[in-house]
């Protein structure tokens, strides 16, 4: 432990010095170069992935945002601050408001809102303010925030004009905003000079860009503040073209929960629904994991963990992506030769650059050892001893994995398109479910897969043709699948051809398709189609399905069968769990029962059950209380505590006849430890017995 020159017991922060590289070099004994290459591979890969994710997100939001922007653009198209020619009875105007329902995945909202703000600023108006509820506890704060952002943005936009607004000093109020707005717009108008130029309607619109106020999380705002804010906005609506955007996590009814009718009637609300986060995740997975562009993949256990966090806990894609990023970092940090995890084009030079030590590490990978063992005896030796030969083999194996990826993902989509509409969804409704099964094991040997095919075997001609077409369209555009697409199209054509043919046959065979017969056939033996009353259609059907089955069984194998898959697949569940899933209670118990785990000091190193006097007081008290029953006698506890922490004093006390009360320091330390335990919820005071406390946990000794 680092020493400080302070006397107090407190937490001190020690700045680490370049932890990242040091650990990779020290802990794993690599050359400096290896660590650096891995790091650069990682950062390059992550950068690409990140860009891809952002592009996906932008594309997904485009649809809903387009509508929203159009609405904002149109909302004040005939705005004109004509305050003079007002009649006494002004027409009541509502504030154009958009309610953007974003779903409960709150960690994602920040990105959504940032994107929206940027979009609005780029395409509609420079005057945008984004308010978060935590910044706006009062009317004053909300006004200050709004003004600062609106004015500051405009300043940044036209910094050549010396807009010398020192708003921060003066009081921020709506009237200031109004006069600022009038000033800005009039200044914009004046250089254009002659009124002839301004007759176009579109130009006029640009002259009065709306002021957009985005409230990120409507639910979080305090009701009175928001009510006042809306009332004020409507008060100034004839001078400033305001548009409000409410970001809502739950449902539109939230607006009515916060705003009473008197206020909500000032709004003209239009509702927009943003993409559901489940769809969003599907797209991200599709772009990032289900593609051979990015060689890094998740193993089944980690994949399921991240998916569970998503489905069970927060619906947040952002958390998922961060988990993915963490997995990547961990993978490149820990796995020995992970810089080979790169595109197929770079494999050869990288393998060529491997040193002997790195090759040894490769040989020690379990999948590689398995591969060597599977080879004939005479070829094992060169693999293990001849580095150049081994390099060739490694290159080949890595290229194989790449081609595996090329094949597997289109076929996965294909299988998904077939199976998603089957009754009871044996393979799941979402692509990610099939992918999870693929990661776990060979998909063609699973029960679900067999179930789906048994459904397919009783399908009618029309739906089967449709499915085949779906398959073909999924595989189209991949040059490696040209042959497959052709075969599928042939099948479709044949199915179409037999239409007349079957009609003819039907007259001969009374029943072309017997439910019972097909059932029996399935039971007896799957795929031998030759029976008496098999029609042309049936035989063709089983041919087609057999073809698909073979195709899937050939390519949709689990990555675990491939040698060197450890380079691409990250499956260290415990590491991820430790970092991503906080378990406060387990952490507290570990800290209390084995303080050495966190403190890393030599004095506390001990067996799990042992109690040492050198441990922190609370640990001693905790371990002692584990030995007690439901009620703990405080005095006995104290005695045991003193015996352990300060055995010398107990011996002394025995010699003295002054009584065996421990000294005050011990007393104080003990009381402190007990109240800390009480704070942590392990004991509580009880009235059932004097001088006792009740234990609140079970177990122990």
């Amino acid at each position, binding site marked *: 432990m680092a020493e400080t020159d302070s006397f107090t017991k407190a937490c001190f922060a020690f700045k680490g010095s370049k932890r990242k590289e040091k650990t990779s070099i020290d802990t794993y004994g690599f050359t400096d170069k290896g660590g650096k290459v891995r790091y650069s591979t990682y950062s390059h890969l992550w950068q690409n992935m990140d860009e891809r994710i952002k592009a996906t997100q932008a594309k997904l939001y485009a649809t809903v945002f387009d509508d929203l922007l159009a609405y904002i653009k149109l909302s004040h198209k005939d705005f004109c601050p004509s305050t003079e020619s007002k*009649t006494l009875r002004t027409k009541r105007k509502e504030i154009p408001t958009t309610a953007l329902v974003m779903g409960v995945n709150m960690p994602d909202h920040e990105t959504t809102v940032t994107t929206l703000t940027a979009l609005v600023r780029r395409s509609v108006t420079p005057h945008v303010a984004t308010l978060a509820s935590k910044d706006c506890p009062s009317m004053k704060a909300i006004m200050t925030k709004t003004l600062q952002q609106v004015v500051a943005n405009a300043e940044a936009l036209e910094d050549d004009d010396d807009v010398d607004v020192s708003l921060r000093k003066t*009081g921020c109020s709506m009237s200031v905003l109004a006069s600022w707005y009038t000033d800005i717009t009039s200044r914009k108008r004046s250089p254009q000079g002659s009124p002839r130029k301004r007759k176009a309607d579109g130009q006029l619109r640009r002259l009065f860009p709306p002021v957009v106020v985005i409230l990120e999380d409507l639910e979080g705002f305090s009701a009175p503040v928001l009510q006042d804010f809306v009332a*004020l906005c409507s008060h100034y609506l004839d001078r400033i073209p305001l548009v409000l955007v409410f970001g809502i996590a739950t449902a539109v009814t939230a607006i009515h929960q916060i705003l009473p009718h008197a206020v909500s009637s000032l709004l003209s609300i239009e509702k927009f629904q943003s993409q*559901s986060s489940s769809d969003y995740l599907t797209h991200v997975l599709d772009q990032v994991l289900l593609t051979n562009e990015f060689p890094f993949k998740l193993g089944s256990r980690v994949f399921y963990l991240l998916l569970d966090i998503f489905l069970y806990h927060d*619906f947040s894609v952002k958390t998922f992506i961060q988990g993915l990023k963490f997995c990547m970092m961990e993978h490149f940090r820990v796995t020995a030769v992970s810089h080979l995890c790169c595109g197929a084009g770079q494999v050869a030079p990288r393998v060529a650059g491997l040193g002997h030590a790195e090759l040894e590490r490769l040989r020690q990978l379990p999948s590689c050892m398995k591969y060597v063992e599977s080879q004939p005896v005479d070829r094992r030796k060169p693999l293990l001893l001849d580095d150049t030969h081994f390099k060739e083999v490694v290159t080949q194996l890595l290229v194989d994995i790449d081609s595996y990826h090329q094949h597997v993902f289109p076929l996965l989509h294909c299988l998904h398109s077939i199976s998603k509409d089957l009754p009871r969804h044996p393979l799941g409704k979402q692509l990610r479910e099939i992918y999870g099964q693929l990661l776990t094991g060979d998909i063609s040997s699973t029960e679900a897969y067999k179930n789906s095919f048994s459904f397919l075997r009783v399908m009618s001609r029309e739906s089967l043709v449709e499915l085949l077409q779906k398959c073909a369209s999924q595989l189209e555009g991949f040059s490696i699948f040209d042959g497959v697409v052709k075969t599928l199209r042939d099948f479709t054509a044949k199915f179409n051809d037999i239409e007349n043919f079957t009609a003819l046959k039907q007259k001969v065979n009374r029943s072309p398709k017997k439910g019972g017969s097909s059932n029996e056939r399935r039971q007896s033996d799957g795929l031998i189609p030759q029976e008496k009353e098999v029609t042309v259609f049936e035989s063709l059907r089983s041919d087609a399905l057999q073809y698909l089955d073979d195709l899937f069984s050939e390519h949709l194998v689990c990555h675990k069968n491939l040698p060197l898959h450890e380079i691409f697949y990250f499956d260290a569940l415990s590491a991820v769990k430790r970092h991503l899933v906080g*378990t406060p209670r387990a952490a507290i118990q570990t800290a209390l029962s084995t303080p050495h785990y966190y403190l890393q000091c030599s004095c506390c190193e001990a067996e799990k059950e042992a109690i040492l006097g050198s441990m922190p007081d609370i640990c001693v008290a905790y371990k002692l209380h584990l030995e007690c029953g439901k009620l703990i006698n405080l005095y006995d506890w104290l005695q045991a505590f003193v015996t352990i922490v300060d055995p010398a004093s107990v011996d002394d006390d025995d010699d003295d006849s002054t009584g065996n009360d421990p000294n005050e320091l011990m007393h104080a330390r003990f009381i402190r430890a007990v109240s800390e335990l009480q704070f942590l919820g392990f004991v509580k005071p009880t009235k059932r017995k004097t001088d006792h406390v009740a234990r609140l946990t079970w177990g122990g000794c």
Partner: protein
Amino acid sequence: MAVETRAESTDFARMHNELPCRSQQIDSLLGLFGEPSHWTYPSLFIYGHTATGKTLVVTALLQTLRVPHAVLNCIECYSQRNLFEGILNQLSSYVPGPDNGYSALYRCDNVNDFIRLLRKVIETEKFDKETVYIVLDKADRLRGLDLTLLPALVRLQELTGNNVCVVFISELVWEKFRCGTGLVEPYQIHFPNYSRAELVEILSLDCPSEYGTDFYRNYVNMLLGVFHLACRDLNELRYLAQLNFARYRKPVDRGEATEQDVRKLWKNIEPHLKTAIDSIYLREVSSSQWERMQSQTADEETIDGDLSQLPQTLAPRASVELPYYSKFLLIAAYLASYNPAKSDRRFFSKGRVKRTKQTKGKKTASSQLLGPKIFALNRLLAIFYAIGDERIVPTANIFTQVSSLVTLKLLAQASGDEQIDGAKYRCLVSLDFIRSIGRSVRFNVLRYLYDFI
């Protein structure tokens, strides 16, 4: 009525025309104001329900009379300083702008300075021969500011020694303003609600020029026939009138009916108004969206007026998709809020349930009527682990979900933020909502509710 020097009599005529049904109030206000040089009653208090023309009448009067005045909306005055500086700015016709760095004319943040500066302003602007009016709209907000503010404003004439009249406008009665000492009773004027006939008259003013007034009056009459029971707010009625007029006039536009064909027009509009009454006050769709929907349905034009299939924007109102464990947490919170803690053992203990002697005294009121009760975090988690179908690891994610439910306003924190070791919560969702959540995870909430056993 006093003869005004600056305002022409035509102005008054116009005002009476444009502000119908408020003649009595206008007259009494004019009587109180008198001529500019007359000393007016130090403070007036104008109250009445929403949309009874209080602000409109007062501002219109002051504008017509062309007397010095300042009109402030007290919502904007969240601090005394805003209020004082706003009044002073307006009286000296000073607008904060880029030329003066958006600062106020004077810096003023207490009553003493305000009175001094007000005198100064009156002197420099030469207002000492006439009455200066200060109108404070939504005056109820003033009660939230400094305790001495309201008494000072009421006595402003006395304190400044100038001819100043402060007009308070509020929806509350004066009794609600009485607090502390030093209040002088202002002169109170009540603006009563419009009667039905008056509403018709006012609404008829909105008549579009291309239609006859009688036609529109009929329409307004029909509208009031449906809505008057539910709503007397002029604003809301105007909104509804505007919203539904397009529908009403459609037969006339198409030439299927004449403007006098009242019965036919009524038949046409009635079902629409009946559906509109369900969403009165809600405004979940904007008027533009509503108009679009109306035109859509009009295009389809099923003659029997089948309105059951309203567009989707109206139909699913409160559907919230929650993560799996959040649903269970919410259910647990609901059970904790509505079940007495004593009954937990009966519902959730896994082993034998020892039925102790039921000491059911008199049946207490249903907790559904009493509302949700506060529960501790521990109890919530205990119930959560009991109803969760599988073994759930107590991770930090579970705890963050509790707080995110609070941010979503599905739970409310009942203990202070600083009390971290015994956080208490209350569940805010309704029984219907929790039942639908329960259905989505195949959990029958009613079986676990004490009131329904």
